[in-house]
């Protein structure tokens, strides 16, 4: 994302001084109709170019969403035909204490994920953007968790944390902790999910920040150094502001990801103990594929889509990201 607005800025900066490369109307005196058409073709691709993507989006995103909206008005057990029940599922959704708790847990998870992952990913990313060779090697090591599938990650951590047969069973008593049942406790199970999520996704966000930090012109730091700014000051006044669009991008990914987070919870805790890690996507799975109330599950799913979209839009709007203002104005 940072890349796209950089190029736009450079275009705008250039056009202030000399004729734009792609031929804009003011500099070309009365272009021939034919010329204009060909210009338009080069400069701005027609809507037809978007057709494959639109078709794909329509078939695999828009259509299922319409179907889910319809299913949320029915009662369906996965066999035979859905039975239309109007708003029954929706009124139940509003009154369901389990759903209310799941929404709360989902929000807590989202906030915690952001608080835990953003600073670490930002610092690691900025650090990894440096030039030394050892950084490249270490960055590659940090990057490893991203290459594993969520299911594999959850299985590995479950095995590591097993209170009777895992390494923890061996380590715990030797540290005087007795048997440590991390996944069996309400708070600790939730904390484990936050931790495993961070372990899995920090590399991705680190990569974003690394890319963003490399885009910052070295001249800014040189100027700051001449003015007597130290490392901390440079970080606070140059790196952070320059990375603000990257922070938005990463935050949107993080928030939407946390709201729809599912696979690790399914394998690591199964929503338990009790309902203590039953976040909204897991509740949707439970309602749909354990209780076979696919209509109700659809209502939950649709709510999730709406909430995630709204939050993403709000984030983009209130961070000024949508205006596509450059981080390098005035340079």
């Amino acid at each position, binding site marked *: 994302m940072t890349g796209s607005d950089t190029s736009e800025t450079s275009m705008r900066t250039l056009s202030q001084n000399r004729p734009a490369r792609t031929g804009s109307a003011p500099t070309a005196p009365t272009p021939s109709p034919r010329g204009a058409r060909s210009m338009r073709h080069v400069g701005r691709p027609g809507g037809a170019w978007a057709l494959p993507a639109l078709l794909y989006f329509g078939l695999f995103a828009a259509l299922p969403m319409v179907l889910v909206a319809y299913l949320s008005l029915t009662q369906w057990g996965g*066999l035979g035909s859905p039975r239309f029940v109007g708003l029954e599922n929706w009124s139940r959704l509003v009154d369901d204490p389990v759903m209310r708790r799941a929404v709360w847990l989902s929000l807590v998870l989202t906030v915690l994920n952001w608080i835990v992952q953003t600073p670490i990913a930002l610092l690691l990313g900025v650090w990894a953007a440096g030039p030394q060779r050892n950084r490249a090697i270490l960055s590659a090591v940090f990057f490893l968790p991203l290459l594993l599938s969520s299911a594999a990650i959850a299985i590995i951590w479950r095995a590591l944390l097993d209170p*009777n047969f895992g390494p923890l069973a061996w380590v715990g008593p030797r540290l005087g902790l*007795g048997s440590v049942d991390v996944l069996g406790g309400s708070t600790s199970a939730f904390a484990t999910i936050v931790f495993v999520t961070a372990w899995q996704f920090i590399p991705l966000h680190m990569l974003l920040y690394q890319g963003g930090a490399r885009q910052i012109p070295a001249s800014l730091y040189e100027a700051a150094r001449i003015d007597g700014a130290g490392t901390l000051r440079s970080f606070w006044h140059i790196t952070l502001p320059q990375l603000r669009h990257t922070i938005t991008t990463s935050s949107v990914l993080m928030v939407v990801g946390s709201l729809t987070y599912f696979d690790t919870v399914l394998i690591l805790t199964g929503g338990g103990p009790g309902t203590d890690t039953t976040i909204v996507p897991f509740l949707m799975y439970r309602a749909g594929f354990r*209780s076979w109330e696919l209509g109700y599950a659809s209502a939950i799913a649709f709510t999730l889509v709406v909430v995630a979209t709204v939050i993403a839009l709000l984030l983009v709007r209130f961070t000024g990201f949508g205006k596509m203002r450059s981080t390098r104005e005035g340079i």
Partner: protein
Amino acid sequence: MTTPRVVAAGASVLALLTATACGGGGGAAADGDMHVWMYQDTLVVVQDAAVERFNEESEVQAVIDEVPGDNYEERLRTAMGSSEQPDVFFNWGAGSIQPYVDQDMLMPLDDLLAEDPELADAFIPSVLEAGKVDDVQYGIPMRGTQPVILFYNEAVFEDVGVEPPQTWEDILDLVDAFDEAGVTPFALAGADPWTEQMWLQYLVDRIGGPEVFQRIHDGDMEGWRDPAVLEAAETVQDLVDRGAFGESYASVSYTEGGASTLLSEGRAAMHLMGSWEYSTHLDQDRPFAEEDLGYTVFPPVPGGEGDPANVVGNPTNFFSISADTDFAEPAQEFLGYTSQEEYVADMVANGEVPTTTNAEEAVADSPNPDFAVFQYEMVRDAPHFQLSWDQALPPETATPMVTEIESLFNGQSTPEQFVDALAAL
């Protein structure tokens, strides 16, 4: 042991795709084989052998698809709603196949039994009855009977110098004794909450008798407010507080072998589990199963109204046939194999107690006749055999019920909250 989880996770994703993409349709996979879906555990060897015998005699080739245990019902339901229906599949009879019967997806087997009276007479009538829905036969018994039994490790009992429990006071004394000796009194696979359900089933039955759950089963959710349910829940809380299940039961898995290993390694003294626990140990740790594995009935609870001879568990499992199968004839023929002598002998050899009428002679030839006879008589003499609650109730109530049971065992809800939550289902 981790593979089933991966497969299960992948399967859920596939299930989502198939459920949305291609609902309806009939017939099994187009590879020309007759697909038999089996719950994956150590007992599948019996069905494997039956398929081998069947394939020798039949032109149609049968294959067994083993489905990981903890996701079996989800996968079956999704497959039945798609074009990948199995031809023959394992199930729990009664309530568990009701949704398929409602959609006319199962083949009625009354004609099969009428044409083959020998098959009809081969099974204990009350067990065969459990394969009926709306008075029509849809399932043929294909496994041994599965009462829930109190297993224990004899070596650990000897070490600590105690005797197996006969009364509820014994249970409480044993909890204290083992706790002091540093042994977990009861292995409990809390990561699979259906194992916790077994405790409540027995406690409710011993305290209030089978009528308590019968009322709930008939659809009256206020039945959960019966004092017997509250007392059972308080008893559970008491056991948990006394440390009867140790500290880390919430993370112990049954399907991955955790609880059984705790028992066989002597880290836990007792384990309340279905009779298949015996064959699990035969498979995992044969010397332990043959020398040190003890078993007894669930003791009576003081002041309880239920007959102490009642048992809970699964009367047996059944094979049913999809109505849409391309192999109607061969599939029915295959079902007949479950009453054959070799099949019954295989079951006995693997520690099962068959539900065929001639089982009494067969169990005498079992590798551990004592266990087989014990189990056979336990079931035969039981005035009431309570089918597992989560199989008896429809999934939309059973799923949240099992979660509530988990919350009770983990101390996240009090007995009163537990009762209120269940009554509100």
